[in-house]
């Protein structure tokens, strides 16, 4: 399969580094020193992330490759190490290594029309750059890619695949079905790990998730203050990782305690992320370009800040600890990105009011049909309400689809409109 890419020295170095658990230990130690002046929440995340990869390589616990909407609470209750290839793609892009994996994938006939997150992740497993999964779990939230990519992974590694496939409608029938699915899932995992499922452990992780969620809500509430104490640009990076990967774990709770403290401090002192903040933006779609780019600088130039981003909402209720699975099922069904677009639109309207938004930016990730397909309708709807929206075409991972001049012109023109509206 791999006869097109030449394995020269650089490739071999990258691969042997990536495949060693020692690498992640090293990154953690060196990173902690290098970033010692950064926020403690960032350092905590770096620690958490590299530790998970290190443990995964050491095979101390069974490794599961999971999609971002797979309930992490279940995975922790069953003592698994979750890996999130979609998010690992983002960190690879931040290190400017995405091109290498994209080339690998494309030379193995993965079309360049596929979402770049999945192309990088495919390149990574084709190069055996990640710890081998013992099982693969995904949901059909929010896209087809999530179903098919993980199916490919399971076939590539010859391991079992469980798909949670939520129904389109949000009703009692769907709820009952999902609760059963989650029950079946824990049995399915138990069989493969030879570990008895413990309701007590699940209750504990649900409880921890509840506590973390309370903190996320608190942070979201503090972010309503002007000037914005936390920028969406940062929130779409490492905090987003924890949002998907850490609910139900003790580390997750500790992280949110740190983050909440930092955000609170900023708010109390009236420190805004942007000095003399003038434009408040709502960012749509759950990602942004992760390779070095000019968007942040342009926002600073126009004193614009991403006051909030739709993905960070808490759209689910506190888990009822007497019912182990219904809370998780409800959370899956309550996702604003699922079902009809009207759900997403009404959550956006809500956020615009709460965060005193001046303008909305929808990041059109190339290849993302589910999100980009709705952008024009959202724009029309908001236009009728007098809210300006920019559809910004781009790619979160593949730098070849990044054109600085085009992004600059569109963003600046949009900020010029917003500036004159004030």
């Amino acid at each position, binding site marked *: 399969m791999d006869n097109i890419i030449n394995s020269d020295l650089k490739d071999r170095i990258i691969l042997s580094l990536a495949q060693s658990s020692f690498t992640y230990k090293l990154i953690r130690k060196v990173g902690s020193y290098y970033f010692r002046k950064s926020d403690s929440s960032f350092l905590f995340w770096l620690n958490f992330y590299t530790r998970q990869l290190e443990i995964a390589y050491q095979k101390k616990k069974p490794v599961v490759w999971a999609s971002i909407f797979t309930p992490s609470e279940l995975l922790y209750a069953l003592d698994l190490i979750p890996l999130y290839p979609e998010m690992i793609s983002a960190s690879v892009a931040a290190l400017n290594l995405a091109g290498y994996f994209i080339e690998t994938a494309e030379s193995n006939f993965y079309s360049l029309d596929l979402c770049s997150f999945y192309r990088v992740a495919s390149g990574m497993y084709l190069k055996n750059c990640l710890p081998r999964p013992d099982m693969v779990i995904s949901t059909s939230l929010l896209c087809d890619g999530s179903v098919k990519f993980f199916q490919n992974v399971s076939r*590539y590694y010859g391991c079992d695949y469980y798909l949670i496939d939520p*129904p389109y409608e949000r009703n009692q029938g769907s709820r009952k079905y999902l609760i059963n699915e989650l029950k079946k899932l824990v049995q399915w995992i138990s069989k493969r790990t030879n570990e008895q499922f413990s309701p007590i452990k699940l209750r504990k992780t649900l409880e921890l998730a509840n506590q973390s969620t309370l903190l996320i809500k608190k942070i979201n509430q503090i972010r309503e203050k002007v000037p914005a104490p936390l920028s969406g640009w940062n929130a779409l990076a490492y905090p987003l990782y924890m949002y998907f990967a850490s609910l139900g774990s003790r580390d997750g709770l500790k992280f949110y305690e740190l983050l909440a403290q930092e955000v609170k401090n900023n708010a109390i002192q009236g420190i805004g992320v942007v000095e003399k903040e003038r434009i408040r933006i709502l960012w749509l779609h759950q990602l942004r370009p992760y390779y070095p780019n000019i968007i942040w600088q342009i926002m600073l130039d126009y004193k614009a800040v991403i006051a909030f981003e739709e993905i960070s909402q808490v759209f689910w209720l506190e888990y009822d600890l007497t019912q182990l699975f219904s809370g998780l099922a409800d959370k899956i069904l309550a996702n604003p990105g699922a079902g009809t677009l009207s759900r997403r639109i009404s959550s956006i309207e809500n956020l615009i009011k709460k965060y005193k938004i001046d303008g909305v930016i929808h990041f059109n990730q190339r290849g993302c*049909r589910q999100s980009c397909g709705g952008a024009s309708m959202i724009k029309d709807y908001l236009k009728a309400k007098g809210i300006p929206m920019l559809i910004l075409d781009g790619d979160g991972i593949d730098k070849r689809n990044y054109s600085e001049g085009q992004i600059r012109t569109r963003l600046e023109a949009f900020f010029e409109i917003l500036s004159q509206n004030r």
Partner: protein
Amino acid sequence: MLEYPPHSQKNKIITIKKKPFIAFFCTYTPQEIILASGFRPQRVIPLGFDPSLANTFLDSNFCPFVRSILSWAIKQNQDNAMVPFILVNSCDGMRRLYDVMSYYFRDSFIYFLDLPRKRDRASEELFKSYLYDLKRSLEDFTGREITDEALQEAIRESNNFRTIFMRLDEMRKKQNINLSYYDFFKLIQDGTEGIKKIYGLYPNDFLIYDSHLITNQNQLGEKKKTLRILLTGSVLDNIEIIKIIEEYGGIIELADHCNGWRYYINKIDETNPNKIDAIVSFYLHKISCPRMMESVTREERLLEIITDRKIDGVIFYTQKFCDVSLFQIPLLREKIKSLGVLSLCLEGEFSDNISGQVRTRIQAFMEAIEFG
């Protein structure tokens, strides 16, 4: 904003052979329930409606099939001729199509049928509840109850259709009748109307008289060397592709597309007293589309066919931006390669004019297989 006529346009009822029709697009649409409601289910492949007209509503990097459907719908709406639609939640593209259509064509009958990706017991129960809901909606729309007898009759009629095509395919393969794959594929799109036109027979009579067809048709002359091709992918938009492959010396053994083989293969169990159960079981367990979890079984079947029928080459013909097809191609290609068979990847764009580039690719591929 495009200027639409006011939203008070009701569905215009267009009839074909005195039966009003409902447009559908996905092979998983339960035609039997539509038939039983008194409507005629008509599969629409809207070639010739410029997909780029839909770019302003959906994204330009979007399945051309979905965009063509919207382009067709926009034209109908402009002509005050919106027909009833049934869309299936088969992929992200269709999901967004439903959002756009239900937002801009508010007074029209546009039904969205959910479809499970799995086929275990729980999924069957879910799909059953969806079909009961569809049944109720159609009953509300038509003002008529859908009886079990009507369902039984509808199942029989659609089974007939499938049987005819499975028979025709067999006869065509054994060269008992002079029917090119191009004409055969065209017949599949035209349905039983086409059969009547060409053979002058009513579909039911066809099953009795097909032996009559065998003896009365000329045997094909001496078989010249042809290259056996397997076509596979999503929707086959322009059937001229088949003609081009045949022109360059290919003979198509099978077109594994949603409007090809997957459309007529298998039959519904007529002995099941619960008609909806029979329909559920049929749709969830038939040869699946790449979108389903069980696409692996289909792939294994394809690999068997490649070996059994000594296929010389495989052409993947998918719609551009069809993610579910694009994800499955690399692994399937590898497996086909390990059988010693070459494959070609082509992308359809719902263009009514097949470009020189596509022709060249096909010709080069045929040459590669012939001399390889």
